[in-house]
C-alpha cells in the first residue's frame, strides 16, 4: 500500500462556531500502481482527504502513511515538504495557478523550487509539455493567451514536471469538451501504465468505469465503499444510492437484461460485452 490512512479525522476551524467535521475516522488505502477513483457527493470530504496526501493539511486526529512517511496531527510542515515532490496534486481548475510570463518558465517553476538546476528544469519542462501534447511553438507564449483546455494542459505539465510517484487529480476534466476530456484521460492512463499511482476525484462514473482500477467512495466524511472497480459496479448499487449518474454501459446492461438477451454480465469492457452478445454467450 503506497498510502495507508488510519482513523483520520479532519475538522475545519475547530473550537469555533464555524467548526465543521469534514472527515470522520477515515480508514482506507491506495495500492501502489493503481488508478484509484475517489467518488462521492459534493461536501463528502473528497478534496479534504486528498489534500492530506501531499501534507497541504495535516490531520486533526488519526494518521496516514504516504510512501513510508508517517503524517500525524500538528506535524511541522517543513519536514513534510519532500512529500510535495513525491505526490503531485492537481487542483480543480488548475489553470489559475499559472503566473509566469512564458509557458516554459511556468512549467519550470516547480522543479526549480525543489532545487533542480535551470538546465535540468528546462529539459524536464520540455518533456512534460510534450507529454501533455504541447509542442515547442508554445514555449515562449504567455500562458494567459491560451484557451481553457490548453491552460489546463500547461498546469498539469507543471505538476508532471515534478516527476511525482503519486499523481492526485481533483476533477481533472471538469469544464473540458468531450474530446479534450478523453485525451486528458488517456494521458493519465499512459502515466499509470508507466508506473505512476493515480488518484482521481471525479463525478463522472464513466471515467471510473473506463480508466480506474480501484474505487473509494465517501459520504459525509465516512468511507462507504473501498475495493475494486468490478466489485463496485457488479456487486453494489452504491452509485444509485448516492445519486450519481449511471454510466451508459450499466444502462445498456440493464436494458439487455430486461430484453432477456444473454450476455457476459460481469464485464465492464464494452468490446467484450459486444462480443458476448454476438456469441449469445451465458456465464
Amino acid at each position, binding site marked *: 500500500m503506497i498510502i495507508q490512512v488510519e482513523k483520520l479525522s479532519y475538522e475545519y*476551524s475547530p473550537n469555533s462556531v*464555524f467548526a465543521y467535521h469534514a472527515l470522520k475516522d477515515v480508514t482506507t488505502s491506495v495500492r501502489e500502481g493503481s488508478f484509484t477513483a475517489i467518488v462521492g457527493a459534493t461536501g463528502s470530504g473528497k478534496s479534504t482527504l486528498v*489534500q492530506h496526501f*501531499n501534507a*497541504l493539511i495535516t490531520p486533526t486526529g488519526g494518521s496516514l502513511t504516504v510512501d513510508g512517511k508517517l503524517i500525524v496531527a500538528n506535524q511541522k*510542515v*517543513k519536514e513534510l*515538504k519532500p512529500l*510535495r*515532490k513525491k505526490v*503531485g*496534486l*492537481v*487542483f480543480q481548475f*488548475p489553470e*489559475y*495557478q*499559472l*503566473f509566469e510570463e512564458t509557458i516554459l518558465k511556468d512549467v519550470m*517553476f*516547480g522543479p526549480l*523550487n*525543489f532545487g533542480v538546476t535551470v538546465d535540468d528544469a528546462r529539459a524536464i519542462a520540455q518533456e512534460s509539455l510534450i507529454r501533455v501534447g504541447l509542442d515547442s511553438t508554445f514555449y515562449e507564449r504567455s500562458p*494567459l493567451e491560451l484557451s481553457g483546455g490548453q491552460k489546463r494542459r500547461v498546469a498539469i505539465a*507543471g*505538476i508532471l514536471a*515534478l516527476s511525482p510517484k503519486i499523481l492526485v487529480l481533483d476533477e481533472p476534466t471538469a469544464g473540458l469538451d468531450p474530446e479534450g476530456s478523453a485525451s486528458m484521460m488517456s494521458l493519465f492512463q499512459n502515466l499509470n501504465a508507466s508506473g505512476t499511482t493515480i488518484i482521481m476525484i471525479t463525478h463522472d462514473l464513466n471515467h471510473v468505469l473506463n480508466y480506474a482500477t480501484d474505487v473509494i467512495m465517501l459520504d459525509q466524511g465516512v468511507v462507504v465503499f473501498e475495493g475494486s472497480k468490478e466489485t463496485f459496479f457488479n456487486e453494489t448499487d452504491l452509485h444509485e444510492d448516492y445519486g450519481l449518474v449511471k454510466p451508459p454501459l450499466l444502462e445498456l446492461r440493464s436494458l439487455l437484461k430486461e430484453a432477456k438477451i444473454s450476455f457476459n454480465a460481469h464485464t465492464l469492457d464494452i468490446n467484450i460485452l459486444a462480443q458476448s452478445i454476438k456469441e449469445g454467450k451465458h456465464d
Partner: protein
Amino acid sequence: MTNIALGRYIPTNSIIHKLDPRMKIMNMLFLMVAVFLPARFYGYGILSVVAVSLILVSKLKFGFILKSLKPVLLMLIFLLVINIFVLRTGYVVVDIFGLLVYSDALFQTAYIVIRLLLMIMITTLLTATTKPLDLTLGIEDLLAPFKRFKVPAHEIAMMISIALRFIPTLIEESQRIMKAQASRGVDLTEGKINEKIVAILSLIVPLFVSSFQRAEELADAMEARGYSPTAVRTRYKQLEVTLKDWVSLFLVLCVLIAVGTLAWFV
C-alpha cells in the same frame, strides 16, 4: 486568514444591531468628530467610557475588539520613536544616555494612541453590528442629498457592496492559489528574500488575473439583466427611523456637546 477581525459583521443581535444603519453612521461620524476635539484626557476619558459601554451593550467580545487593534500596534511604536526625536518641548522626563525625552513627546504620542484606539473601537462597533448590505444602503441614503451636486451616490454604494461581497471570495481564492503553489514547492514562510518575492508573485499574479476575470463576468451578468446605474430603482428593504434611533442620536449629541464644552475650557 479567516480570522480577520477588522470590519467583520458579528451577529450578536443586540439593541445596537437593531438601530437604523443611517443613524448609526451619523452617530459614528459625530463620535469621530468628538474624538478629534482637543479635549485632552478629560474628553478621552468620557469617550473611552462611552466606547466601552457601547461595546458592552452590543454584546461584542473584548477579545474581538483587541484583535482589530493588533494591526495598529506597530504604527504606535513607530509614532513614539518619531515623537521622541522630533518633539522637544515641555519638561525633560527621562534622560536615556544623553537622549532627552520631553513630556510633550510622551503626551502627544499618548493622544494619538488614544485617538486611534477610540477610532478603531468606534468604527469596529459600526461594522461589527451592521450587516454590510445595510451599511451600503445607509451610505447610499446619506449620500442621496448630494446627488444634486453630481455625487454618484448609487454608484458609490454599489461599488462598496460589490467590494464587500467579494472579500470572502478573494480570501477563499487566495487560499486555493496558495495551496496550489505549495503543491509546486512554494514555501511562503521560509527561504531567501528573492525566493519569497517569487512566492508572493506566484500568489498575486493569479489573484489579479482571476479578479479581472470575475469583474468582467460580473459586469456582463449585470448588463444581461438590464442593470443601469442611472435607472431609478425601488428597494426591497425599507429602512425606517424609530424612536430608539432618535434616542441614540440624542445621546451621541450629548456626548459630542460635553466633549466640545470641555475642549473649549481646557
